């Protein structure tokens, strides 16, 4: 077992970042939590539980808050979702549990499930890990997990629960994947993510950080372990394909977010243009505002109704003071070693949905920072194919093809989950993928008779 809070103690703890990114949704205190918990109707086969990809027994954990059994509440959450704290803070609850709450049809006020979950999880955050289960006795089986993000962490927990060795490899300094480096700090702090990873480490999961797994190493891991879990997430953010994209001042949303979360960036100045209109683009735009940028503009080639960000994220960005330029696309970057402006042209939609440039509509938008957030590439190179080797697993449009119920790929020894299989969804989807894969891997490794819940 690792020492407690091993990763948590490596948090950068930047006071500037803490001051610039306070909680978006302040936590409940005991009184507020109990009052809210008492509103829950305690539905049978509750829609909130069904809507949660990890099927947390929501009424059960809420009832336990109401009865002052908060430790039991936290264990109920962890039993279904080992990353229950980050999900409580990062989940888009109004399209998940809270969106499904029957209260919408009762008094129009859904139960604040996310905040209650956070309350339960934080009440045990600094305890010596009251876990809902213990690792099972060693079975002699071993699994390598590539990537230390939510999918791998969830998978590893399920494996440890069933007595299987779980060894995680990741190229970053700190584990947690996007939970650590990619979720807006006002939703989930880096330190909270690490504290949660510590809980997973406490189950006996081994971490090899700063270790990039390439195709050769993957071969070696394959020979050392009984199975492989691929939780590699998505790759780099796409580039615009314009000249001078390497210029100073041009960055991408994930780097921007990771840098401020690590404390490497604690302030920004000048004008910022964010290109793209997904949830990550919004996070980057809001971060720029909070870091002190003078003016932040998001540009998107379609209109507000087509943006892939959630509506509530769009509303939040407007409240933060982000400006939006619709129906434009970048056609050039201006600057000399350092970006000075983005050249944009206007677009029109045709009835068939295709976009065409409006002739002679180009204009310049001054910017000292240009942040790209136009989707991420995939990790096809790691998984082979190509000339030299046969591909390890079958991909489809860059995504690893899996059986949804088991996470098993076309190669029976390989399982996968998270963004690399779903193209990029939420933390909770990655956890659900990892959990299903971990359970199924154990069943596959130990034989169906023993692979179920033996913990």
């Amino acid at each position, binding site marked *: 077992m690792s020492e407690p809070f091993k990763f948590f103690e490596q948090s950068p703890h930047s006071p500037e970042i803490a001051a610039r990114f306070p909680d978006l949704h302040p936590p409940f205190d005991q009184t507020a939590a109990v009052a809210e918990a008492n509103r829950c109707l305690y539905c049978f086969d509750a829609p909130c539980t069904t809507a949660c990809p990890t*099927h947390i027994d929501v009424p059960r954990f809420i009832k336990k808050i109401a009865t002052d059994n908060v430790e039991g509440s936290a264990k109920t959450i962890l039993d279904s979702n080992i990353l229950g704290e980050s999900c409580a803070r990062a989940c888009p609850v109004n399209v998940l549990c809270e969106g499904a709450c029957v209260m919408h049809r009762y008094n129009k006020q859904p139960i604040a499930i996310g905040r209650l979950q956070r309350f339960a999880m934080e009440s045990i955050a600094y305890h010596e890990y009251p876990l809902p289960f213990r690792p099972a006795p060693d079975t002699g089986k071993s699994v390598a997990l590539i990537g230390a993000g939510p999918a791998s962490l969830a998978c590893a927990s399920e494996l440890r629960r069933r007595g299987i060795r779980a060894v995680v490899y990741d190229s970053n300094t700190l584990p947690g994947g996007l939970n650590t480096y990619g979720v807006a700090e006002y939703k989930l702090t880096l330190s909270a993510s690490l504290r949660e990873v510590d809980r997973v480490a406490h189950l006996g999961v081994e971490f090899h950080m700063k270790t990039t797994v390439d195709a050769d190493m993957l071969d070696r891991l394959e020979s050392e372990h009984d199975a492989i879990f691929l939780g590699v997430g998505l790759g780099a953010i796409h580039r615009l394909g314009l000249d001078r994209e390497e210029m100073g001042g041009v960055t991408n949303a994930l780097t921007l977010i990771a840098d401020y979360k690590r404390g490497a960036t604690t302030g920004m100045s000048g004008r910022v243009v964010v290109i793209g209109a997904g949830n990550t683009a919004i996070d980057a735009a809001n971060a720029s505002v909070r870091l002190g940028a003078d003016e932040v503009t998001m540009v998107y080639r379609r209109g507000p109704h087509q943006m892939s960000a959630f509506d509530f994220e769009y509303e939040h960005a407007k409240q933060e003071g982000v400006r939006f330029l619709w129906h434009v696309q970048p056609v050039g970057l201006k600057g000399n070693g350092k970006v000075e402006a983005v050249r944009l042209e206007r677009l029109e939609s045709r009835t068939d949905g295709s976009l065409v440039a409006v002739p002679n509509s180009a204009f310049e938008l001054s910017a000292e920072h240009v942040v790209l957030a136009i989707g991420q590439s995939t990790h096809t190179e790691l998984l082979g194919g190509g000339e030299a080797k046969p591909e390890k697993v079958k991909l489809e449009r860059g995504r690893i093809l899996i059986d949804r119920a088991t996470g098993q790929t076309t190669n029976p020894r390989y399982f996968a989950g998270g963004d690399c299989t779903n193209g990029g969804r939420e933390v909770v989807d990655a956890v659900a993928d990892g959990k299903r894969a971990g359970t199924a891997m154990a069943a596959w490794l130990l034989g169906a008779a023993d692979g179920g819940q033996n913990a």
Partner: protein
Amino acid sequence: MPSTTLETTFAGIKCLNPFWLASAPPTNCGEQVMRAFDAGWGGAVWKTIGEPITNVSSRYSSIDYNGQKMMGLNNIELISDRPIEVNLREIEEVKRRYPKHVVIASLMVESKRDVWHDIVKRAEGAGADGLELNFGCPHGMSERGMGSAVGQVPEYCQQISSWVKEVARTPVIVKLTPNISDIRMPARAAKRAGADALSAINTINSITGIDLNTFEPRPNVDGKSSHGGYCGPAVKPIALNMVQQVMSDPEAALPMSAIGGIGTWADAAEFILLGAGTVQVCTAAMHYGYRIVEDMADGLLTWMRRKGFHTIDDFRGRSLPNVTDWKHLNLNYKIVARIHEEKCIGCQLCYTACWDGAHQCIHLDRTLPEPDTKRTPQGIAVEAPKRITTTPIAKLDLNGPGAEGRYLTPLSRIPRVDEHECVGCNLCSLVCPVPNCITMERVDNGLPPQSWDERVALGIVPEAAEHGALPNPNA
């Protein structure tokens, strides 16, 4: 058309309204009682007067329920801790300033004829409109042979009541304890002694709880506690039953000042429908203050107008004939649950209640190919985690909660009642959180009304099954 009024006469005492404060901390002193009258209370039963006692600290404890405070309140406070002459002097002053308001002197002294004669004369001399004999206090005083120690023994109750009646010139109200197997016995005793009225119920013996850190009961007096008197909303059903029992008994029935969990106009209306002439309030006033009487009066008047009642007497006792023995209930009356699915929010509480707490006749099979009455809650719970759900991506997942129809209840979540199996127990409609979503509807089975009693008379069922070997003390 006559106007609607709350004015009433109780055992000869003219009342501005039927709302009295019960003998308790809210009526401890004249200053309080006058503020209460200013707030709208029609009367006050003074905190019980007797030889001053010494109280303990602490004195109250309560039961909260699902976030609601003081569902039930318990106290181990004794009678007035102030000298008799102080209380009487203040009564005199209150009556001088508020001649139209009712002041009842609650009395408790040792069980001696001359002592009772003396206190009755002094209270009446102070101007009390009536006397309430405290034969109900369940804690402390009972250990000294007073309070419920008197109320629990009909002979004592009768003896002391008759001593009081020997000298009393104002109406005598005997306050009954519920800590007895049949409340009609002391009520009959009081009536035999010539009492003019009754009040019921006093508080119920209780221990409200144990501190789970210290293992000490509440209210805590230096690590120990004693059983106290329970009151508040939790005791209302018990009080309603006891008031009905007394008021339906010709040997016991007298003008009744009802007590027990009354905090709203609706509570008051229910007690009056079971025969009460006035109601007494304590816990609700202790919780929220005297100001609650405004809505009690306003709400009761509004309800009376809506129902066409002009006076309290127009509806007093109106529900008494509707309370009967079980053996007279119509066994051929049949109702079944109907779920109004346009109101159903899909919580499925009716489903699990019916399966685990009733008769297994509500089913979740609306979207199955055919009705399935064998599918259990446990079976559903096993299947549920196998469903694979993902976060809906806006604009891509049209079937997600973000899509149109988000707030409609899916048909699969709307339960179905098997009306042939439904026994009409009401449980589903009781647990349903939505008003009028589940209604209990009468089903015409073509059978004439028939009670158990009638079946016995017809020889359909043996008489022995009704009457056991032992006489029923409640019969």
